[in-house]
Each structure stands twice: as C-alpha cells, then as structure tokens.
C-alpha cells in the first residue's frame, strides 16, 4: 500500500472552506494546501478574503463549512492557543505586541525558559532572544520594552517569536508592507532558511515580484472565491493579475481627462516631528492626485494632519486660499475639507448606529437649521437626505434605520462617502477608498471619484493599490520615510517608477 513513496499529506490545509460574517460572504469554497518545505503565495486583491484565510489558519475564525486539516487529518482549532499547539505561527500585518513588556518577554510569553524550580530564567531568556536576533541579523535589546519600536522592528520581534516556537507552519500576512528593500532581503533570507528546515510557509504580499522571487506555488482568491492553486513556474505577472482581477484592468479606472482648475488645497512644508517632514504639494480643482508609498511612509499621517486630526509642528495648510489652524477638524470642515479615513470601522463609521444617523453625523448643524428655529433636529430632513444620498450612490440596504454594521464592506464605504459628500466639500481626501470592498463596488467608487473630479472637486487619494493609483491619478506623489520623494505625472507613472520611489531607490534623481 505505502510502497511507492506516497506524497506526504500537506502540513496544513483548508479544504472547501466557506465563512461568512453577517451578510458578508468572506470565503466560499476555498482550498489551500501548505506543504512542508514550500513557500506558498496567497494572491488576491484587497478584500478578496486573504485575511480571513489567515485568521482561519490561526484559529481565530472557524470555518462555517469545509475542513481544516493538519497532516491530512481533520482538526478543529478552538482558538489561537490550539493553532499554536499544532505548530502554526502567524505574523500579522499589524504586529500585536505587549507594549509594556520587554522584547524578550514578548517573544517568550507563556513559554519562558525556566529553572528547575519552574521560575523564569531571565538570563537564559535574554540570551535566547539575543541569539534569535543574531540569527535574524538585527540589533535589538531583549530588555527593551516593546512600546516605541518601529513597525519593522515589531515585525522582527514577531518573526523571532515564530522561530522560537519552532513553528511547523508559518503564516505571513503582508510582512513586507512596511519594510525597506534591505529589510525585505533580510526577511527572505530568514524565510528560505526556515523553508529548508522543512517549514510550510504561507506568504502574502501585494508586491507580485516578491511572490515570484520567494514562492513556489500560488493560490488566488477573488471576492472570497477560490480561483485556483498552481505552480508559479511558467506563470507571468500578467497571468497572476488576470486571475486576481478577473477582467481587463482598464475597465476599472474610468478617470476622465479634465483641465485642472484653481488650486484648492495647498500644503507647504508641513512637518510633524518623527512622522513626516517638509511635505509640500498642491491639489487643483478637477484633479485626482494620488499619494503613494509603502505602509508607514507617512501618507495617512499627512492626511490626518491636513484634516486636523493630528497636530502639525510646522508648515501651513491652505484650502481655497484660506489658512487652516492646526488640529481642528471642525475648522477644516468649515473650510470645505472632507476626509474619508483609512479605518472604516474605527474612524469612518459608528458601527452600531443607523445608516441615516451615520450619514447625518457630519451635518448636525444644517440638519438643525432645516427644521426651523431651535436646536432640535428634524428626523424627516435627516431621513430624506440619507435616502437621497443612498439613491445617488446606489446603496444596497434594507432599511435606513438598520445599523450600518450589517452592510457589506463596499456599502459601508458608500455610507462614509455619502456622509462626507453631503457636506459639499471643495477638497475630498480619501484614504484607501477601496480597501476591503468587492470589485463591483470598487468600480462604482472609482467612477464616482472620477465624476466628482469632473464636477470640479479636488481629490487627494491615498492608496496602496498600485493599479488603482496608476489608473485614477492625474499626478502621483510618492512618499518614502516621511518625505515626499517624487511627483510623477500620469503619463510617466508606471508600477516600476512608483515602486522605485516608494522604496527609496530614487534618491538623487528624484522627481521625473
């Protein structure tokens, strides 16, 4: 029976797994097999379900249907602890460390080296941490508290944690998003070592060239559906993109050509110490300007400062020629600014509040005036306005009184857009406007932004989605480590030129 070397079953696998959250179908019939000694890529657009796959492997989510298999045997992870016990280590996009505890304790929490009496052997723990850092080639002090570490260093701590666990399966959810070229190379070296030691690795990245460089096999997801698993050998970047997107790219980006009008937003030498430095640019009416760069380059931080969420230390912001005070969203709104923030769940919406009230939250004053004298709000005005915007943005909902949390991601984003467009802004800043929403809605959002620009709105768009940046923007501003390093006009913007600037390989020859 077992004579001719049967192929070993995959270390860890999802077989025909489906998972939904409320109304949102996150995964549908997904199968992924992770083999020992192989680096497996998971490809898909934002919102394709990659993070749900990661969390299912990690024991955070349990499949609604389908199976999780460990070495070929069905297994149920009742929580992260079960997954860890089974040898699964996960490195999340955003590291989750204990800020108050030392780096060494973060690595060894729950598994500290002990003396014969069962107490923690701190010296051994620090030595072990130091040794791990030596292997990884980084200089971190094991005694230092995790609070205040850079994202890259936090990532290193997470990787050290996984290595120290002797993980059989390593899941890496966009580990390179915030790393520089050198740091990525270092990470790949470590990953290959683990691979040679027989570890099964799942690797997620938005940078396709990284996938081709590091991985042997790829599984593609689109809108939570499994598209296929195949060897990367013989596949081209275009093939992969086609599988991820499922249609020609051009269809998605209907940016109309417009002649830019007057300057609507002018940012001069804006600085927030330790976050971004000396950022200057302008956005004209009718223009869509993209702000590109790696995660952690300071793009969202610039947007937050402009809108007044964060204080700035130096520089000026002018909207329509009028200077804004630092740190006052109220003043920014009065001047005609609107910000669709990065984190929809925390910053964009009040999840438990109804659709209509979320939409009305930015216009409490005008809703008040509409109902005549006194400070009372007219519910009818609130509802009428909400219905109006719901129609204009083709929002899919059952009742305006429903909590916004029951909508799908794309429809939630429409509510955020409606909430801001209803303030009739002259400058719209959108931070990752299509992150985590389905392709159909994504196209709608793009069309909407394009129309708005055509109607003389100035749009500043922050996006990590390169095709989106290239397709939508009239100009691309690129940030690297808190500085604006390049301004690339539409006809010269390519994946290569933007990525080169974003990864800091452009220093010296700067703006094209």
């Amino acid at each position, binding site marked *: 029976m077992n004579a001719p070397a049967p192929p070993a079953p995959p270390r860890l696998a999802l077989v025909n797994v*489906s998972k*939904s*959250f*409320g*109304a*949102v179908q996150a995964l549908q*019939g997904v199968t992924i097999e992770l083999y020992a000694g192989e680096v497996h890529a998971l490809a898909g657009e934002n919102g394709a379900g990659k993070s749900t796959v990661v969390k299912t492997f990690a024991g955070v*989510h349990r499949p*609604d*249907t389908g199976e999780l298999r460990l070495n070929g045997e069905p297994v149920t992870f009742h929580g992260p602890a079960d997954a860890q016990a089974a040898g699964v280590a996960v490195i999340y996009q955003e590291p989750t460390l204990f800020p108050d505890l030392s780096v060494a304790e973060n690595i060894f929490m729950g598994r500290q080296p002990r003396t014969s009496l069962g107490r923690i052997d701190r010296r051994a723990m620090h030595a072990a941490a130091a040794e791990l850092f030596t292997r990884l080639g980084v200089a971190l002090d094991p005694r230092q508290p995790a609070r205040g570490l850079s994202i890259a260093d936090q990532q290193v701590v997470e990787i050290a944690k996984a290595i120290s666990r002797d993980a059989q399966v390593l899941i890496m959810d966009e580990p390179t998003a915030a790393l520089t070229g050198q740091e990525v190379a270092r990470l790949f070296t470590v990953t290959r070592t683990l691979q040679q030691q027989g570890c099964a690795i799942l690797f997620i990245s938005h940078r396709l060239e990284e996938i081709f460089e590091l991985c042997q096999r790829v599984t593609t997801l689109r809108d939570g559906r499994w598209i296929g698993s195949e060897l990367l050998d013989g596949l081209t970047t275009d093939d992969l993109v086609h599988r991820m997107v499922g249609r020609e790219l051009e269809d998605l980006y209907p940016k109309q050509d417009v002649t830019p009008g007057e300057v609507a937003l002018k940012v001069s030498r804006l600085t927030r110490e330790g976050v971004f430095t000396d950022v200057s640019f302008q956005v004209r009416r009718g223009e869509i300007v993209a702000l590109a760069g790696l995660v952690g380059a300071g793009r969202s931080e610039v947007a937050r400062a402009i*809108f007044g*969420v964060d204080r700035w230390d130096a520089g000026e912001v002018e909207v329509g020629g009028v200077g804004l005070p630092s740190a006052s*969203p*109220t003043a*920014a*709104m009065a001047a005609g600014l609107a*910000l669709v*923030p990065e*984190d929809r*769940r*925390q*910053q*964009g*919406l*009040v*999840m*438990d*509040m109804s659709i209509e*009230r979320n939409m*009305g*939250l*930015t216009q*409490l*004053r005008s*809703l*008040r005036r509409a109902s005549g004298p006194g*400070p*009372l*709000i007219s*519910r009818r005005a609130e509802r009428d306005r909400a219905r109006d915007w719901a129609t204009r943005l083709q929002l899919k909902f059952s009742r305006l009184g*429903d*909590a916004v*949390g*029951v909508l799908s991601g794309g429809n939630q984003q429409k509510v955020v857009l409606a*909430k801001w467009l209803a303030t009739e802004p002259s400058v719209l800043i959108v931070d990752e406007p299509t992150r985590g929403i389905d392709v159909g809605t994504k196209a709608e959002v793009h069309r909407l932004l394009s129309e708005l620009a055509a109607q003389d709105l100035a749009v500043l768009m922050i996006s990590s989605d390169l095709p989106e940046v290239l397709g939508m923007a009239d100009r691309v501003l690129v940030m690297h480590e808190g500085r604006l390093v390049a301004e690339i006009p539409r006809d010269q913007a390519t994946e290569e030129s933007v990525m080169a600037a974003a990864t800091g390989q452009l220093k010296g020859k700067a703006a094209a």
Partner: protein
Amino acid sequence: MAEGRTAGGLDLGRFLRWDVVVAALLIVVFFGGAGLSPDFGNTDNLSFALGDLGEIALIALPMTLLVVCGQVDLSVASVLGLASALTGALWDAGWAFETIVPVVVLAGVVCGLINGLLVTRLGLPSLAVTIGTLSLYRGLAYVLLGTEAIAEFPQQYADLATTNVPGTPVPYPVALFVLLAIVTALVLHATGIGRSLFAIGAQEDAAFYAGIRVKRIKLVLFAVSGVVAAFAGIVYTLRYGSARADNGVGLELAVIAAVLLGGVDFDGGKGTLGGVIAGVLLIGLLRNLLMLNDVATEIQSIVTGLLLIVSVLTPRLITAAGQARARRRHRDPAAAPA
C-alpha cells in the same frame, strides 16, 4: 466577529428592548405593590416615595448623558455632600440664603470642571479621575464642617423642598425633575448634541473624524453633572433640614444603578432616557415597598446590588444566546450549498 454580534444583537433588539422590559417590570411592581400593601397606592405614599427619590433622580439625568457618552462620574455624591457642607457653613457664617445658592452652584461647576479638565486635557480615564475627586470633594466637605450638623434653614426654602406644588400631589423637587427630564430627553434624543453623545460613546474616533468637538462636549457634561449634583445637595439639605458633610454618602452607586438598570450600556453609545426614568422609579418603588412591608432597610442595598448586576448581565446573556442561535441557524442552510 463584530459584524456577527451587531447582526445578532439587532435582531433581538427589535423584539426585546431592555428599557421596555424595565418599564413593564415597573408596572408589575406598581400593581403588585398595590395588592401587597394597601398603603402603597395612595397618593401621599407615592408622593413621599417620589420625593425621597428626588436627588437620585435629578443626578441620574446628567449621569445618563455621561454614560451614553462613555464616561462616568463617581464624584456626584461627594459634590452633593460638599454642596451641603458649604451651604451649612455659609449659613452658619450668616450669609443670606439667596447668596448661598448661586455660590454653591458655582462650586458645583468648579467641581465638575476639575473632573472634566482632567479627563479631556490629560486624557485620563473618567473612572480613575472621579474616584479621586470622590475622595477629594468628600474630604473637603469634612474639612468645612467636620462632624457638625447645621440646621434651621429659612422656612420658605425648606418648604420648597418638602411641600407639593399647590393643587397637585407632586413635590417641588419632583416637578423640577420632570422639567429637567423633558429637557434632557430632548437633548439626548432630538438634538445634534444627543447624536454626538451616542457617536462619541459608541466610537469616539469616528465621532472625532466627523468633526464633533468631543473634548468640549465631555467638558460641558462634567460641568453640568457638577451643577446638578450641587443643586441636589441644596435640595437634600433642605429636605432633611440638616447640612452635614456625610450627606448622601454612597448615593453615586444608587444613581449608577438606576442608569444601568434603565438599559444604558456602561460601555457607552446605547440607552434611552425613558429607560433611565423607569429604572429610577423602579428602584424607588421597590425601596418604598420594602419599607412599607417592614423589610429591613439592609435588604434594600442587597436588592439594589442584585438589580444592578442583573440589569447588566441579562442583556449580555440575551445577546450571547442570540449569537449562538444565529451561528446555528447560519450553519444549517450553509451545509447544503446551492
């Protein structure tokens, strides 16, 4: 996960709202009480029961706004005590009562502003801050008056606190409460400020990003809480005819119990003023009923404590049960894919 919870909670929320449950409970207690004790239902007793609740009811109004906004003010009873002590001390020093009232109310504003500034300027948790000022304000009350009791306040003012509005069975403080309750209900449920409060309590970041002046609103709320507590201190002093430093010790617990019993979520963002009023009345009637039936006063605090725990525990259990059911429901049809 979060989405699942929202959906499950909402489903059930449509059929079973906690504030409605409390209101129903209130009716049951009312009629049950009338059956149990013949004195319970008569107007004299009811107006006494209401009057006895006066301070708790008054302070519960701003407390509702604070808790909806995700904050809490544990120092209210100490502000009440300080106000009482200050009233006594000033009266003892020969001040005119007409001057004392504004001065005491002003002191309440200051107490509230101290809470509010520590919370908004330094970003400290309101729980920690107001545990500190609870101790501080009560201590200052003792410093002012020691263990003395000041009595014999002018009759016309004492009457205001103890007698009924002419031609009605409603004591003046209760009438004031009704007035303030209407204002508070309108603010909470029909103005932009109310919308802002819910938004801040449910998702402070999102409220801030929507241009709501979060800090200013919180500061004002703490100040209002201070004012109302100070005013309640004057009422308390007049009602008992005695100004003491230890007036109203532990009252903050009764107020919070009433607010939470009324279905306001301690984590902020959810609640109705109607529910709180039902909660206040329920606690008041229960106390009165226990008293009429000669149940030892000690039992009252047991009942209050249990009510507090049950009122927070029950909605959570209901939600958890709903979620479990939603999960099961979800799994079954999904097992047979189309």
